[in-house]
């Protein structure tokens, strides 16, 4: 990363990855795979958006949130409630849901950052907000309460429901790639530099003229928006949302783990991490299936846990760190 070298070459890796992913469905069909892998790929793309969102505030900005479920859920419920209760077209609902998520991010961020919460204090306060939303969504009538919100099945492109799963895949891919590009642009900008500076040392950053509050707010708003988009896509895929899915801690954990596994504060980290996490899970499942059948519940998850620990033991800087180490050795 020497100075000055920037421009289009920075985006080359993204273009390569985008192209490779774009060829994936065709490749899978040619390889004779049934829907399993494509379905997995779609889930990976959707959840990687949540992780990419987290990575902006958490990875680049060092604001570790344990409550990105709050934003995921806002996106998910926004998308669902706008359609189901207010009859808004899903294509229109999507940007609204994203905006809603972003505003919630801004609100939580404002309260937390004004109170100068850092580190695990910040983490836990976001977690608390997510829990509050979960409890409210589970009780409020307009979210459908505990019954959740179900979107009617009505397969029409105008309705954001597609007969071919590939369409959904490409749609998710476009969003993921857009966020990858956005990430790279941020990395190359003043905002990005300030964000990282805030992560490393707030006092030093302030002494250099960085308005840390503003930087953190921008980051959390953007972060929340992207994670909300993930929630909205999730709703569109499963056409059903309830409080535990939308605001449950699983998504907060997923959004946080994937970047750490993949490589925190890197462009590809969240995507690679999500793929690794879900891929490992699937691998453990099929592997165990092949070896032992399905007699003992949970042993695939035991294997998954062991793999997870092993992965950290051998790739301390995340998968991206490992890749970097290997390629550096080669160069």
């Amino acid at each position: 990363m020497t100075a000055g070298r920037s421009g289009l070459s920075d985006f080359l890796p993204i273009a390569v990855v985008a192209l490779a992913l774009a060829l994936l469905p065709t490749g899978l069909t040619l390889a004779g795979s049934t829907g399993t892998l494509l379905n997995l790929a779609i889930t990976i793309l959707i959840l990687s958006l949540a992780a990419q969102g987290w990575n902006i505030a958490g990875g680049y900005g060092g604001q570790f949130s344990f409550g990105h479920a709050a934003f995921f859920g806002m996106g998910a419920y926004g998308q669902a409630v706008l359609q189901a209760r207010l009859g808004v077209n899903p294509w229109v609902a999507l940007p609204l849901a994203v905006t809603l998520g972003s505003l919630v991010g801004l609100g939580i961020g404002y309260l937390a950052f004004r109170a100068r919460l850092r580190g695990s204090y910040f983490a836990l306060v976001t977690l608390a907000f997510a829990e509050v939303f979960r409890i409210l969504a589970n009780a409020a009538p307009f979210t459908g309460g505990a019954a959740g919100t179900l979107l009617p099945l009505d397969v029409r492109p105008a309705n954001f429901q597609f007969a071919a799963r590939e369409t959904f895949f490409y749609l998710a891919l476009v969003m993921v790639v857009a966020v990858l590009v956005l990430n790279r642009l941020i990395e190359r900008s003043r905002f990005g530099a300030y964000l990282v500076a805030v992560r490393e040392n707030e006092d030093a950053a302030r002494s250099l003229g960085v308005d840390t509050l503003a930087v953190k707010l921008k980051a959390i708003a953007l972060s929340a928006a992207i994670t909300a988009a993930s929630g909205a896509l999730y709703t569109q895929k499963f056409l059903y949302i309830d409080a535990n899915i939308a605001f449950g801690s699983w998504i907060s954990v997923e959004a946080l783990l994937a970047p750490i596994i993949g490589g925190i504060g890197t462009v590809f980290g969240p995507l690679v991490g999500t793929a690794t996490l879900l891929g490992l899970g699937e691998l453990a499942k099929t592997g165990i299936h092949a070896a032992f059948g399905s007699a003992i519940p949970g042993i695939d998850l035991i294997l998954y846990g062991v793999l997870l620990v092993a992965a950290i033991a051998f790739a301390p800087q995340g998968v991206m760190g490992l890749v970097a180490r290997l390629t550096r050795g080669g160069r």
Partner: protein
Amino acid sequence: QAAPVKLGILQPVTGNLAQDGEYGRIGAEAAINDINQAGGIKSLGGAKIEMVFGDARSNPEAGTQEVERMNGEGVSAIVGGFASPICLAASQAASRYDLPYVVDVGVSDAIVSRGLKNTFRFGPGFGTCTRVAIENLVKLNDAAGKPAKTVVLVHEDGLFGTGLAKLMNERLSALGFQILETIPHPTPARDMSNVALRIRALNPDLVIPSSYYGEFVLLARTMQQQRIRPKGIYAVLNGAASNFRFVKEFPDAASNVMDCNHWADPRKPKTAELRKQVEATGRFWLYNTPLNYSCVKLVADAIERAASRDRTKIIEALAASTFTDHIMPYGPTRFENGQNMGAAPVNTQIQGGDIKVIFPAEFADAKAVFPVTG
């Protein structure tokens, strides 16, 4: 020997719902064994049924992922799901492949109202359960000379409990009961003593709890501890009141608790046989087992009649099904928009260390003890 017919069994055997999933799976396995031992699918040359098991991990994504895998492995139908969100997502994923999907429990009525042709629900839905629960309560109360006037509703705050409590609230008030209070609680709850204290303060004639296992056990024990003795505990779709572990471990707290729930037909010989079989392996007798047992039998029957592995044919056969060889107290199946119209819950009561059916009369093997005295 004909190639086996593959049948997908989807249950959440890890995560929050692991217990239900596991007992469902026991039933499905038992049914497959029975069918295979009886010669498999005769119209397909005695083809054996081969189970393709999938762990739905208590969440919808994992559920759909398993449906995809099962489809890849070429299953002819899928049975199970247990929780409504899983059933909703899984059946929809299956519908892409015209893959017949039989829901075992999944009480949300949205499951059968989406117009999915592939989706069938063998058990009763939410509406039916509440309607029957209220009807039977009224009958019970009337028969005993209306001892119960005041009611406290306790419910878990999920899909089951909340919806139920809302309906109960409206209907019971209309029927002249006085609802003193409705108390929701989360699952898992760390502490039920506040609920118990509240009940003690309100001193209702009747407590209507609908909770999962752990919470109800806590509540029942605390009530016993605090010497709270209403005239009746009338549970609805309760995780413990129809669970033998509860009966065995806390006979005092469990005694005389009533439940309106899924339950096997006690008078069918196969029920007792299956129960013995399950208990012989050190497990308890829960409704998930007979329900899934019956669902698998239902699907096998449809395949038998369709005489084909073709999914559309199986769906047609399911839709036309008038199946009686199950062990639930339902009568012959009759599907309307995928819902088995004969399905209904029954009332049970814990008496003398056993769970007895007390209502409706045609399936009952004991008389209700109500009001409870002493």
